């Protein structure tokens, strides 16, 4: 993980509490993606769940925020915010323990060429050769920092500073399911073919969303992923062999 020493604390004015729509509160730990801010979001959300506040309907996390959705007929915004402010004082959320039962997924990925048509462009923006870019990504285990945009789709990070490259201002019309894409120090494995502003650098055979299954979501927030470079022929071989949706991945329980 990234985790620069200078980023170990949540800096003022954070955490902030803001209303989202009529029935949501967003607790934000940073406007920059840092390891402690993501850790804080995951850990604080678990804490809110454990507190079982009457009127809270569901919670989730985005990259650096915890989101709390509530029933306005059961609790008002001011009371909920008071509860949340109180919970926020309980510990230093930037160094809190991550949720338990995390898993490490090692997922084969074919980089460059037709499987990653924007690898060269992304590497150049990061100031790397394509070979260096692949080596750096393969050497960096990344956390499922949040799941979103589409069912089961993981936002992964944090990549080293060099990867702080913006999204494209235009959308690529469609990248396929299992595509590995990058922007702003993050990776995503797409769960469905989709238009995107992120750059397509590699292809996996992984399916993060399996609607035919009663538990259709492969990842949980907090899981870790590592990408194992393979060539195009190996990807085809995995596609033929592994019909589970795991795309040849190895799964390990983390301590």
């Amino acid at each position, binding site marked *: 993980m990234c985790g620069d020493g200078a980023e170990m604390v949540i800096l003022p004015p954070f955490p902030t509490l*803001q*209303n*989202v*729509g*009529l*029935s*949501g509160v*967003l607790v*934000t730990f940073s*406007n*920059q*993606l840092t390891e402690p801010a993501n850790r804080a979001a995951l850990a604080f959300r678990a804490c809110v769940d454990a507190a079982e506040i009457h009127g809270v*309907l*569901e*919670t*989730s*996390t*985005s*990259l*650096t*925020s915890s*989101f709390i*959705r509530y029933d*306005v*007929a059961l609790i008002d*915004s001011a009371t909920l915010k008071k509860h949340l402010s109180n919970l926020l004082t309980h510990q230093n959320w930037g160094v809190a323990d991550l949720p338990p039962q995390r898993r490490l997924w090692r997922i084969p990925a074919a980089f460059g060429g037709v499987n990653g048509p924007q690898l060269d462009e992304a590497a150049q923006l990061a100031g790397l050769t394509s070979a260096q870019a692949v080596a750096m990504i393969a050497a960096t285990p990344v956390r499922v920092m*949040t*799941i*979103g*945009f*589409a*069912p*089961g*789709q993981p*936002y992964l990070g944090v990549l080293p500073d060099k990867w702080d490259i*913006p*999204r494209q*201002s*235009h*959308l690529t019309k469609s990248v396929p399911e299992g595509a590995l894409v990058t922007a*702003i120090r993050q990776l995503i494995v797409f*769960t*469905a073919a989709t238009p995107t*502003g992120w750059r397509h650098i590699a292809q996996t055979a992984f399916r993060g*969303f399996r*609607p035919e299954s009663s538990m*259709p*979501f492969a990842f949980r*927030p907090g899981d870790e992923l590592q990408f194992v470079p393979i060539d195009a022929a190996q990807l085809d071989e995995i596609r033929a062999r592994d019909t589970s949706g795991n795309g040849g991945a190895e799964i390990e329980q983390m301590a």
Partner: protein
Amino acid sequence: MSRALRIHRAGPSLTVQDFGRIGFLEFGLSCGGAADPLALTEGAALLGQGLEHAALEMAGFGGEFEATGEMRIALTGAPMVARLDDAPLLWNASHRLQAGQRLSIGAPQAGMYGYLSIGGGIDFAPFLGSRSTHLAGGIGQTLKGGDSLTAGHDAAPDNFGNYLSPSDRFSGGNIRILPSAQTDLFSAEELARFTATTFTRGARGNRQGVALEFDGCPFAAAEQLFLLSEIMVVGDIQMTGEGAPFILLPECQTTGGYPRIGTVVPDDLPRMAQAAPGTVLKFDFVTREVALKAHVNHAQSYRALMGKIAPLIRDPHDIRDLLSYQLISGVTAGSENHDT
């Protein structure tokens, strides 16, 4: 014997919808559910049944249906031309279908989404606690000719012939919005220009959201391309890379990187979803206090609607003639026939 609604011909976007799935935001699955939840509530009130049942949502046009056994239906939402065999059927009302009767539902006369609710609901096993098709999320799919929907057990088969005066939400107008977590990324000038601008609902739109069109410069927030992806909720008004608003509807993504200028209040979402292409829309910021005071949740709405149910007609022999008269002449049933 199980009763079913057989689909002979399906409109382009015929899906099963209830109020959606709660509790899967953490896995990136938005709530989904009916684009116009008020229409579901109206359907339940007309049939005198609870809010747990799923109904058919119809966009574009409805289709041709046949009842394989006697069943009750309610027609709500965007008014569409409906016929039972050769007789016109009144919208915003409940009716009985006899086995073998053909129901045809055409294009909306106004609005986007019409609803066909069935007495006893549509019976199949829920997935993650809901029967809603979530097209963007890959759950379920649009129904096609040849498909058949099993009706659930109907506890009140003789309760039909009810009418509800429709609330007009099919002609756009002023939409109330709340400030959201990213509203402050827009300058005061941009916010003022936004509320002063007259928008039209663009051609691009579906259950995920709708694009708006307008004359003028693109809207922009600070540092737009470097924004962290953040939670999105139904009703959020996202400013896309082109600087045009895109309003998020029930099948929206759960996170996104474009800034949100505000959020449509839940009570105006039916009006937003029912705006057909070309409909004129404006946005007014309201305070949280104002929005809360005006807010009516599904259960409250249901109770209020139950109090407004009126009998369609007292003499069943006149139903067909009367319905046809009402539909063709455009006289509203509520004012003419059953004021009490």
